[in-house]
Every structure is written in C-alpha cells, then in structure tokens.
C-alpha cells in the first residue's frame, strides 16, 4: 500500500504558467492572479497518474507530489 501523496508547490519557483491547472483541474485551480490553488487533501488513487502528469508538465518543476505530512510550525 503506497503512502498518501499531497500536492505541494514551490512558491518561489512558480511563475504562474498554469499548465498544472489544465492537467489536473479536479485538484488545482488558478487564483485571480494566475497562481495555483492546490487541494490540500490527499490525492486519490484514481487521480495519481494525472497528478504525476501535472508535476511533469510544469516547465519549472515547481509542482511536487510529496508524502503527506502534518503542517510544520513556521520558522
């Protein structure tokens, strides 16, 4: 049984290209400035392949599929 995955974006690398929202509209939408709003829930197994395509489709590799963790305290 594989670990639960969560969508994460590197906000510094992200320039609002928007390919991710086109490839995974079920979990990614764009805010009014073109930056991704990610669904924080774990990626369901049925969407995992599409999620990987979305990760690969980002031209700056800002999108990641990370293992689900608890939110960290901010530094």
């Amino acid at each position, binding site marked *: 049984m594989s670990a639960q995955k969560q969508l994460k974006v590197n906000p510094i690398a992200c320039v*609002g*290209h*928007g*390919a*991710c929202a086109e490839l995974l509209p079920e979990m990614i939408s764009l805010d*009014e400035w*073109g930056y991704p709003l990610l669904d924080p829930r774990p990626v369901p197994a049925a969407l995992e392949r599409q999620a990987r395509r979305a*990760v690969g489709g*980002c031209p700056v*590799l800002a999108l990641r599929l990370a293992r689900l963790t608890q939110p960290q305290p901010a530094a």
Partner: protein
Amino acid sequence: MSGIAASTLPWYVSRATGVVALLLLTAVMLIGILINRQGRLPGLPRFAVTNLHRNLSLMAVVFIVIHVVTAVLDGYVSIPLISGVIPFTSHYEGFWLGLGAVSFDLMLALIVTSLVRGRMSQRLWKAVHWLAYASWPVAFAHSIGSSSDLQGGLLLGLAVLCAAALAAALVWRLVRMAREVPRAQRVGAVMNTLAHRRPGPDTTGRHLVEADRR
C-alpha cells in the same frame, strides 16, 4: 569536396531527414525562447506547449538517427557509424560531419538530463539546457557545410529563414528581459500600478496588469 552525383535512395533519405531535423530543431528552439513564464501559443492549452517542445525534440532525435544511419548505409562514401556521435572520425568531410556529431552529442545531453530532470540538481539541469544555444549554431554550420544542398536555392532560403527567426526571437526575449522589473522593485511596481488605477474599488480583482506578472 562538395556535391555528390550518386542518386542512391539512402543518400536522398539522409539529406531529406537532415533538412527536416533542422526545421524541427529550429521549432524546438523557438518554443523554448518565446514561451516563457505565462506565455502561450494561441489556440493551444498551456500544457500543450511544454509537450510540444518535448515531443518535437524527441522527433528530431529520431530523424537525426535515420539521417546518420542512411548516410552510413549508402556505400558511396565511407562514413563509420560511430562518427554519428564521436566527432571528426569520418574520412568523408571529416570536419563538417564532425560538427554534426558535436551538435548531436549536445542534444543528447539536453534530452537525457531533461528525462531525468526530477532526480537531478536544478542548477545542473539548467546549465546543461543552456548548451542548446551552442547546439543549434553547430547543427546549422554542419547543415551548410557538409552538403551543397543548403548552399543555394530554396533550401538555402529555408536555412536563412530559420536563422533569422531564431535571431529575431532572441532579440525579442532579450528586450523583454531588459524591461523586466528586478525582483527587489517588483512589489513597489505593483503598488505604483495600483495607486494609478484608483479611484474606484477593485471589485472583480480580474485586472491583470503587466507589472503584476513576474
């Protein structure tokens, strides 16, 4: 030495695939230079642009492989297969074919690193990708120098058009980069833009001004 009188099929295929490869590579370079940040090709979804860039480069590799193999198979001049990747090992037109091998090697580096991009340092990937700016001119020189095909007529015009398109794209990109607001001044630029847009509240928030984009 220039011009080959023998009209054997492999030789024609080699020349044809060479021309197509040059066109494909030009298209790949154009997409890479022009489509940056939030740009897109009209009519195509955003994710299609990155896919196009990737797929065209893979197609170019296929065409180049055919281009090299058919040139080797055509027995009229002796070209060892290895000279496709090891530069300057062919007896026939050693120098110009060598350039082709150099360009192809650089291309392979770009493509292999891009295929394993997720597992390597981003800085290294970017550095290797910059080699594209070396690979295309070398490929261009190879195209012009190794056969009389591109040295006159329609094909020369095509080659010149490719070079001109790339040069124009580069200039456009450099001008855009020069106009880009440096990071430290970005938020100030956004605030200035917003200040000039008032009076009247921003009801929809959908006004996307150039300065707001990075």
